[in-house]
C-alpha cells in the first residue's frame, strides 16, 4: 500500500493540520510523536490510520490523555486488518479503499465531541441477603477485605439449611461443627452487622449506591437486654405445643423460642402466630414469659421497623426451598407413615433434633429402608434441573441408616449416580460395598410407594417389590419463595429454572444480570456446600472490587436524554438491558451514567429521537456513511457494499479475516457501531440512498450479544427496513442481517462475498441509475 | 501375654501425620485404643531424649510419624528426624533395648489407611514384645 500517497491525500482535506507517517505509531516513539504534535500544533482531533482499533485504540487514547487531549478525540481508520490484509492481491485498489476509509475517519473526527467521565461516590458497605453458609462466607470474606457488611436474614438466626443437617458428605463431618463456628465468627466480626428476622422490602439505586429498605420484624424481645437464658421459652404457656420449622415441624417449641440451641444471635423471639397474647389478646393472669425474664427483655409493644440501608453492592444468597414431595402423589409423602424427605431424615437423626439422635418413626426403629432419588428433579415437566446434591446426600443417609439397621435391607432407587466432587466417588463406592442395594431405574419408569401391613412397599418397574419401614425421598431444590419478589425489586433476571440468572454461565457465574448485584450459593442454582462456599468467596471478591473503588466512573459514551424531546414514554427504559434508565418519580427518562454501558440500543428504539448516544448520533453516522460511500467512488462502477458491524462478534470476525489473510471484495466497507442494536432504520435507508448496492448488518449471535439482546433488536429493525425498501421499490435482498461470532472469519468472508455477488447480479440501485441517466 | 494392652505414645507432625490421623478418624477407620498422640509441629521437633524419657516413664512403645521425605512442611525437618532416629535406634540396640519399641514412619495427610495400618501394626509389634519392664528387669537383675 502506498502510504505516502495516502498521507498526501489526507493532507489535502481542509480540516487537516498535518499528516505524518511512522513505521510504528503504536511504539513509544510513535506515541511521543503524536503527543508532541498535539502540544505544538494545538490539535484537537487525531486520526490514526493503522491497525484495528481493537488492538491499539486503548494505546492511542492513553497517549492522547497524557497529552491532555480528551481521549474521545481520537478516531482510527483500520487500514490493516480490514484493508491491506484482506486485499493483498489488489494493492492499487486497497490503497484507494484506504484513502476512503481515512476520509471517512477524518469526516467523522470533525463531528465527534470530547466526552467527560461522570463519577459517583461509592458507599463503602455491602449487603448480603441470606444468612446461610453462602451468605456467611460472603459476609466474612467481604468483612476480611475491610468493608462493612449487613448480613440480612429472614429467620431469627443465621445458619440456613446447613444448620439443619446432621452430617455432611463425603467426610461425615458433623454439620454443626463446621457451621456454628463460622456463625460465631460472623457475629463476632467487627465489620459485620447481623440484621436477623428481617425482610428486604425495596431496592433502589445503582451500582455503588443502593438503598435497601429492610423491614425488621418485631421479636417482642429486646435484643439488647436478652441474655439468651431461655427462661421465657421454658415458661411460655405454649411451650412444646408449636411445631418447630427448624425441625421440619417434627419437633415442638413454644411461642417464645429460638430455632435451635446454637442459634446466632442467641436472642429469643416471640412468634406472633402462636403467642396467646398476640393471637388471643390474653395469656393467663400474668405474662409468664415477662415474669420469667430477669433482664426485662420481653416487650410486646415492639412494632415492625423499616430501615433504609445504604450499600455499594449486594450479594444475593437466599438459598433454596425443598421441593414439596406432596406433589408426587405416587410417593405418599404426608400421607403414608414412614415416608419422609431428606431434610426430615436429617432432623430425626441429628443429636440436636427432636429425637436427640435416636432415630425412629413414631417410636419405632426402622429395620429396612429405601431411598428414592430425583424427587422433584430432572422432571419431564416441571423442574428440569438436576439438584446436584441429592445423590450424595442419599448415599450419606443410606450409609447412616445402614449403620443402624445392621443386617436390614437398604435400597437406593437412582437414575444416574452423580458423585462428582472430591472424594465423592470414593465415598459412593464405599457405601455400595456396605451392602446397600443400588437399583438403577429410568426417570420416567413407574415407581410407587404403598402401605403394606405395618410398613411400606416400594414398587418399581423392573425390580421385585421392596418392603421397607422407612422410605426417604431425596427431594431436590427449588427457587426459594421470594425469588420473584427480589428479582423484580432489583430488576435482575431469573433463568428458566427459576433461580437467579448469572450474567454469563461460564465466565461470570457469580455476577447477576444487574451491575453491583452478585449471586452466591443455591440462589443461583443448586449446589453443595464447598461449591456454595467457593461461589460466596467469588461474590465477595466482586463486591470488594467495587467497594475498593473510591468512585464509580462512567465509561463514555453513555446515553443522553434530550429533555425537551422526551415524552416520558419510557420505551428506552424497557429496552435497556442494564437497568440504566431511572424512571421512578421523573417526568422524563434519566440515564444513570455509571450503569449505562453505551450500547445505544435505547437510542435506536426511541420514537422521539430524545435519547442519543454521543458520537453515534445521526450526524456522526451519516457523515461517515457519506464519506465511505461517496468520497472515493470505486472505479469502474463496481458495487459498493456497506456493513454496519457491531464492535464485538462482527468487527472481531472482520479483523480475524485480516489476521488470517482471507481475501475480501475490495468494494466492501465497514461502519463500526458499539452494538448492532444501535442500528437505526433511517441509517439503513440512508445508506441505500447514498448509493450502497448492498447493506449488511452484522451482529453477534442472538443470545450471545455482548449487550444481551441488541442483535435481536437489530434483526427486527432490519426486517422493518426491508419492508420500507420494498415499498419504495428497492429489492429488499439488498439489505440483510447476519449474526456471527468473533472466531467466524471464514463465515464472515462467505457472507461478504455472497452479498457482493448478489449486488452484482442485481446491478446498481435506482439511485445510481438516476445519476447515470 | 495376650491380654497385655500396651501403652503407646505417638508423636505426630501437625501437617501430614496428624492430618492423616484426623482423616483416619473422619473415615472411621478402626484402630486399637493403645496409641495416644502428642502433636508437634514437625517430626524434627521430636528429641530422641523424649523417647528415652518415655521409656523411662514406662511407656511400652513410641511412634514418631512425620511427612514423607520430600514432603516436609518445613522442607527438611524430617530429614533430621530420620537421621536422628536411625542412629538412636542403633544405640538402643547396643544398650540391649529392643529398637522395635520405637518406630519412625511417614504418613501423608491423605494416607489415612496407611496411618491406621501403622497404628495397628505397631500395636501388634509391641504386644509381641511385651511390657516395657526394662526398669523392673534391671531390679531383678541386680537383686
Amino acid at each position, binding site marked *: 500500500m502506498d502510504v505516502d500517497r495516502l498521507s498526501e491525500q489526507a493532507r489535502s482535506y481542509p480540516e487537516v493540520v498535518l499528516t505524518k507517517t511512522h513505521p510504528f505509531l503504536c511504539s513509544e516513539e510513535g506515541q511521543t510523536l503524536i503527543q508532541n504534535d498535539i502540544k505544538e500544533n494545538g490539535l484537537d482531533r487525531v486520526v490514526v490510520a493503522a491497525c484495528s482499533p481493537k488492538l491499539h485504540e486503548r494505546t492511542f487514547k492513553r497517549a492522547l490523555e497524557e497529552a491532555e487531549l480528551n481521549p474521545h478525540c481520537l478516531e482510527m481508520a483500520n487500514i490493516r486488518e480490514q484493508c491491506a490484509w484482506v486485499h493483498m492481491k489488489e494493492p492499487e485498489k486497497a490503497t484507494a479503499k484506504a484513502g476512503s476509509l481515512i476520509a471517512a475517519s477524518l469526516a467523522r473526527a470533525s463531528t465527534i465531541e470530547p466526552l467527560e467521565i461522570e463519577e459517583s461516590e461509592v458507599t463503602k458497605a455491602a449487603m448480603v441477603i441470606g444468612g446461610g453458609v453462602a451468605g456467611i462466607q460472603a459476609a466474612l470474606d467481604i468483612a476480611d477485605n475491610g468493608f462493612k457488611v449487613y448480613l440480612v436474614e429472614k429467620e431469627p438466626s443465621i445458619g440456613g439449611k446447613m444448620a439443619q443437617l446432621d452430617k455432611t458428605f463425603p467426610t461425615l463431618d458433623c454439620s454443626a461443627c463446621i457451621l456454628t463456628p463460622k456463625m460465631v465468627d460472623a457475629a463476632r466480626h467487627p465489620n459485620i452487622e447481623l440484621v436477623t428476622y428481617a425482610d428486604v422490602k425495596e431496592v433502589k439505586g445503582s451500582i455503588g449506591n443502593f438503598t435497601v429498605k429492610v423491614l425488621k420484624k418485631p421479636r417482642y424481645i429486646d435484643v439488647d437486654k436478652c441474655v439468651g437464658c431461655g427462661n421465657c421459652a421454658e415458661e411460655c404457656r405454649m411451650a412444646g405445643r408449636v411445631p418447630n420449622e427448624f425441625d421440619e415441624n417434627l419437633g415442638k417449641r413454644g411461642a417464645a423460642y429460638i430455632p435451635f440451641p446454637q442459634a446466632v444471635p442467641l436472642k429469643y423471639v416471640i412468634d406472633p402466630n402462636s403467642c396467646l397474647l398476640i393471637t388471643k389478646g390474653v395469656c393467663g393472669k400474668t405474662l409468664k414469659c415477662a415474669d420469667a425474664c430477669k433482664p426485662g427483655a420481653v416487650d410486646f409493644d415492639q412494632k415492625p421497623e423499616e430501615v433504609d440501608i445504604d450499600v455499594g453492592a449486594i450479594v444475593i444468597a437466599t438459598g433454596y426451598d425443598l421441593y414439596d414431595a406432596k406433589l408426587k402423589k405416587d410417593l405418599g409423602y404426608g400421607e403414608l407413615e414412614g415416608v419422609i424427605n431428606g431434610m426430615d431424615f436429617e432432623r430425626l437423626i441429628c443429636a440436636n433434633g427432636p429425637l436427640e439422635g435416636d432415630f425412629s418413626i413414631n417410636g419405632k426403629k426402622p429395620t429396612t429402608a429405601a431411598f428414592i432419588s430425583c424427587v422433584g428433579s430432572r422432571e419431564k415437566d416441571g423442574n428440569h434441573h438436576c439438584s446436584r446434591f441429592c445423590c450424595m446426600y442419599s448415599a450419606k443417609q443410606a450409609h447412616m441408616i445402614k449403620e443402624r439397621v445392621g443386617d436390614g435391607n437398604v435400597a437406593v432407587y437412582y437414575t444416574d449416580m452423580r458423585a462428582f466432587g472430591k472424594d465423592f466417588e470414593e465415598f459412593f463406592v464405599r457405601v455400595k460395598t456396605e451392602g446397600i442395594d443400588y437399583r438403577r431405574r429410568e426417570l420416567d419408569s413407574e415407581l410407587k410407594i404403598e402401605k403394606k401391613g405395618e410398613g411400606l412397599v416400594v414398587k418399581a418397574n423392573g425390580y421385585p417389590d421392596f418392603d421397607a419401614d422407612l422410605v426417604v425421598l431425596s427431594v431436590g431444590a427449588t427457587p426459594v419463595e421470594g425469588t420473584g419478589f427480589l428479582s423484580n425489586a432489583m430488576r435482575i433476571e431469573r433463568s428458566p429454572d427459576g433461580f437467579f440468572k448469572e450474567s454469563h454461565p461460564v465466565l461470570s457465574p457469580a455476577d447477576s444480570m444487574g451491575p453491583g448485584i452478585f449471586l452466591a450459593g443455591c440462589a443461583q442454582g443448586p449446589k453443595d456446600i464447598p461449591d456454595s462456599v467457593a461461589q460466596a468467596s467469588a461474590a465477595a471478591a466482586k463486591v470488594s472490587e467495587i467497594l475498593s473503588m473510591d468512585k464509580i466512573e462512567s465509561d463514555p459514551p453513555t446515553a443522553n436524554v434530550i429533555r425537551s424531546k422526551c415524552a416520558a414514554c419510557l420505551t428506552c427504559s424497557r429496552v435497556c438491558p442494564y437497568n440504566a434508565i431511572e424512571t421512578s418519580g421523573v417526568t422524563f427518562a434519566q440515564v444513570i451514567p455509571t450503569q449505562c454501558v453505551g450500547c445505544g440500543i435505547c437510542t435506536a428504539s426511541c420514537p422521539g429521537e430524545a435519547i442519543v448516544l454521543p458520537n453515534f448520533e445521526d450526524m456522526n453516522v451519516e457523515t461517515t456513511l457519506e464519506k465511505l460511500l461517496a468520497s472515493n467512488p470505486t472505479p469502474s462502477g463496481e458495487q459498493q457494499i456497506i456493513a454496519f458491524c457491531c464492535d464485538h462478534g462482527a468487527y472481531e470476525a472482520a479483523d480475524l479475516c485480516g489476521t488470517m489473510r482471507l481475501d475480501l471484495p475490495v468494494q466492501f466497507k465497514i461502519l463500526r457501531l458499539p452494538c448492532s442494536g444501535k442500528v437505526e432504520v433511517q441509517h439503513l435507508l440512508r445508506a441505500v440512498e447514498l448509493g450502497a448496492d448492498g447493506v449488511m448488518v452484522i451482529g453477534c449471535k442472538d443470545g450471545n450479544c455482548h449487550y444481551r439482546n441488541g442483535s435481536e433488536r437489530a434483526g427486527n429493525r432490519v426486517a422493518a427496513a426491508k419492508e420500507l425498501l420494498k415499498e419504495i421499490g428497492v429489492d429488499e435482498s439488498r439489505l440483510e442481517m447476519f449474526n456471527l461470532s468473533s472466531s467466524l472469519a471464514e463465515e464472515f468472508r462467505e457472507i461478504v462475498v455472497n452479498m457482493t455477488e448478489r449486488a452484482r447480479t442485481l446491478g446498481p440501485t435506482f439511485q445510481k441509475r438516476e445519476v447515470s441517466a | 501375654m495376650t491380654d497385655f494392652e500396651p501403652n503407646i505414645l505417638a508423636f505426630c507432625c501437625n501437617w501430614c501425620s496428624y492430618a492423616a490421623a484426623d482423616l483416619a478418624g473422619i473415615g472411621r477407620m478402626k484402630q486399637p485404643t493403645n496409641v495416644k498422640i502428642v502433636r508437634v509441629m514437625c517430626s524434627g521437633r521430636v528429641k530422641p531424649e523424649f523417647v528415652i524419657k518415655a521409656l523411662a516413664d514406662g511407656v511400652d512403645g513410641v511412634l514418631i510419624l512425620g511427612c514423607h521425605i520430600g514432603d516436609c512442611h518445613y522442607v527438611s525437618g524430617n530429614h*533430621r528426624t530420620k537421621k536422628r532416629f536411625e542412629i538412636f535406634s542403633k544405640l538402643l540396640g547396643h544398650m540391649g533395648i529392643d529398637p522395635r519399641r520405637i518406630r519412625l514412619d511417614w504418613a501423608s495427610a491423605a494416607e489415612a489407611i496407611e496411618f491406621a495400618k501403622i497404628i495397628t501394626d505397631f500395636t501388634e509389634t509391641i504386644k509381641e514384645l511385651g511390657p516395657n519392664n526394662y526398669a523392673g528387669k*534391671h531390679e531383678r537383675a541386680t537383686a
Partner: protein
Amino acid sequence: MNEQLREVVKGLFARDEVEVVVSLKLNEGCVAPHMYSKEDDLSSMVHSPKYPIGIVVSMIQKKYPDTKIGVVIRGCDERILIELAKRNQVNLDNIVLVGIACTEEDAKDCLCETPFPTKIDIGEKVEGITTDENIEKISQMDMDERFDYWMGQFDKCMKCYGCVYACPTCICENCILEEDMWVKTGELPPEFPSFHLIRAYHSTDRCVDCHECERACPAHIPLVTLYRMIRKDVEDMFGYKIGTDVNEKPPLVTVLEEEG
C-alpha cells in the same frame, strides 16, 4: 622426646610463628597445662601424660581471640580441636599445631585407632588398634544379655558427672543431665539408664575417642566401648569420621544426601 618437643617449640618462637605455646608443664612433680611465651624457660615443658588440651585452648582463645597460639597435641587432641572448631569453640586459623605421635604403649592403653595427628612433629607413627574385645563380646550377646550387662555396669554409676566434666567435647554450659526433668535427681542407682542413654546419644557425632570419660569414671564403667560402638555406626551410616575435617558438618544437622 621432651627435648625434641622443646626444640620444635623454640623454632616456632624463633620464626615468630606463634606468640604463645600451650603445652604441659612439669612443676614440682605435677603436670598441668601451661601457656608459654617466647621469654619463658621451656625446660619444664613435657609432652606426657595425656591431657585433653583443647578445653584449655578454647578458654584461652575466648580471652585472647587474636593471639597466635601454638598447641602441642596428640591425635586425640587434634580431633578435639577440630570438633570444637566445628562448634565455634576454637578458631583454628590462629592455631599452630605441634603434633606428637603416641607410642605403641599409649595406643594400646587407649585402644586408640588413630594414635597420631595429621602432621607429626615429634615421635614415630605407630599403627592404631582396630580390635576391641569388649565390643566383640557385647556383639555376641542377645538383647536381654546386653541390657543386663549394661545395667550391671551402670549400676555402679554414682552420678558424679566425672564423665561429663572430663569430656573435652562436652561444651554445654547447662547440662540437661543435671536437670530433674530429664534425669531424676537423687536417685541411685538409676532405675532406667536415662543418664547414660542421653549421654551416649549426645556423643554420637562428637566423641573423639580420647578416653577422658573412662579415666574420670571412679566406677570404671566401660563408657568408651558404648561410644565407640555408636561412633562406628555413624561412620558406617553417614560416612562421617569424627575429628577429621573441620569443614565437614556433623551428620545430624545436615539433610539427607540422596535428597540434596
